[in-house]
């Protein structure tokens, strides 16, 4: 016990402050950007540069455009590892260690602050599990954990995401309902965790000291939390309820074709269709559907 705790104990100040810092930057800042990008499935409807006939089609275009931009970044893997995976692993693992050292007493002292303290730890655990599932299935290729063995592809960002959330060809399945519900819980938990973390971080660093200053900062954090929650929920609602899988797939094919040429499209489609367990039939079906509306925008 003493030996295991030795390192943590000796560097408690540094670790604790780094834990707080990583929660806000880069992890919190990333989550903000991430949910803004993802909610483009809805706000893309008013993107003047998108051309699809339906509002959700314009969302699909905009989201695809954003995803392509991110995936076109140089040294993406390095950036991901340094700015995301390392800090999240650090914050998450240390967070679990800290959370295990709590003796919750909400039953006795049911004050609002104590409930937030308990929820901060609970949402930490939930968020940890959710992030692991989220990254493993969509980034590390653990397709077997998705409802219909879907491999997410950044060329077909919306359609494969809808399938990974709901099931085969973006149709509802029972595992899909469970996964979508899990996303709802996971996203909500992490947004709460982030907003409440901003509030407590002001105590950790001594930024808001007086009762009044902390109260004002609390209102601001509530506001920030509400906006980010809305971003997260609207993204999820867009992918789960509003997207038409086949329409989205057609738009994405067209965008790939325009950007990289028909040969490349054939190549990646072949690659996709031959993956074991891929939702091949659904994609083949989607590829037959006539293209909806005018050509989409493509970023250079």
């Amino acid at each position, binding site marked *: 016990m003493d030996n295991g705790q030795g390192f943590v104990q000796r560097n408690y100040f540094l670790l604790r402050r780094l834990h707080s810092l990583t929660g806000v930057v880069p992890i919190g800042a990333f989550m903000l950007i991430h949910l803004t990008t993802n909610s483009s499935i809805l706000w893309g409807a008013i993107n003047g540069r998108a051309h699809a006939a339906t509002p959700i089609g314009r969302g699909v275009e905009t989201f695809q455009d954003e995803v392509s931009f991110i995936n076109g970044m140089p040294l993406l893997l390095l950036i991901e590892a340094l700015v995301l995976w390392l800090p999240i692993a650090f914050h998450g693992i240390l967070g679990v260690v800290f959370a295990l050292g709590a003796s919750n007493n909400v039953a006795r002292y049911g004050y609002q602050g104590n409930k937030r303290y308990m929820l901060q730890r609970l949402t930490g655990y939930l968020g940890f599990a959710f992030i692991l599932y989220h990254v493993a299935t969509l980034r590390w290729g653990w397709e077997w954990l998705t409802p219909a063995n879907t491999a997410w592809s950044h060329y077909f960002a919306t359609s494969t995401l809808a399938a990974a959330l709901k099931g085969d060809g973006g149709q509802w399945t029972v595992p899909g309902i469970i996964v979508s519900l899990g996303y709802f819980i996971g996203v909500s938990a992490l947004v709460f965790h982030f907003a409440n973390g901003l509030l407590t971080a002001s105590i950790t660093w001594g930024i808001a000291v007086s*009762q009044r200053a902390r109260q004002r900062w609390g209102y601001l954090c509530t506001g920030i939390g509400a906006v980010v929650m809305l971003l997260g929920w609207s993204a999820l609602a867009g992918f789960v309820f509003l997207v038409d899988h086949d329409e989205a797939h057609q738009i994405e094919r067209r965008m790939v074709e325009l950007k990289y040429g028909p040969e490349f499209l054939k190549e990646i489609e072949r690659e996709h269709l031959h993956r074991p367990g891929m939702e091949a039939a659904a994609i083949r079906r989607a590829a037959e559907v006539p293209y909806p509306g005018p050509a989409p925008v493509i970023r250079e």
Partner: protein
Amino acid sequence: MSNTARGGVRARNVIFRIKRCEGPGKPSRWEAFKVPVEPNANVISCLNWIAANPVTIDGRQTTPVVWDSNCLEEVCGACTMVINGRVRQSCSCLIDEYAPNEGDTITLEPMSKFPVVRDLWVDRQRLFWGLRKVKAWVPIDGTYSLGEGPRETPDHQHDRYVMSTCMSCGCCLDACPQYHKEEDEGKWDRSFVGAAVVNQARLFNEHGTGRVLKPERLDALMGPGGLDACGKAENCVKVCPKNIPLVESIAAVNRAITIHGFKRIFSGK
């Protein structure tokens, strides 16, 4: 003849369920007592009655219940215990509020974060040890007179006054989810000191003469068992009987530590 007082509360019988323990390391057990209470009685007066009549509710003779108390006016903190699940002073705990009706029950337990000496009496040494750890005093010992102290503005004095009202009762520690019971004295140094000690460090950091020890206090609070163990549950400020703004003190000391930490990094010390 009237024996009613305060909102029509009458003399009545109240059941006291008390968690008892013969001594350090001994197992604890529950005993119940039926106490006839007068209007305006408090927990200590009922404990006095039990001490004079140590017979349980089912008629069994037992030992008198032991507790600690001193001032009987909520300024010493000695009588702190857990009443109906929440920590507070027992001398200021009025039965009329807790048990207004015949047969109502009040539950008494010793504080949960300190070693029990006997029954409701605990040993709060660790709190005082914490005050020594952060040097919560004004250093004036020496071989010659230091002359007059520095001047205080009334505003500053007003801010510091409330911090100085702490009676080291330990309520803020008992309710803190980050403060754990630690009987082994050797481990106190790496266990969280708690809000009361942080508040006292702030009180003396902001004292004109006391501030010469500020770097040492902040060093102590940056180390193991220091302020970084606080999890911001804010129970401390809710249960403090003196209404000391403990979370404000925590944030203020954290701010001082932030600045102190950067200074140390850049001065290489």
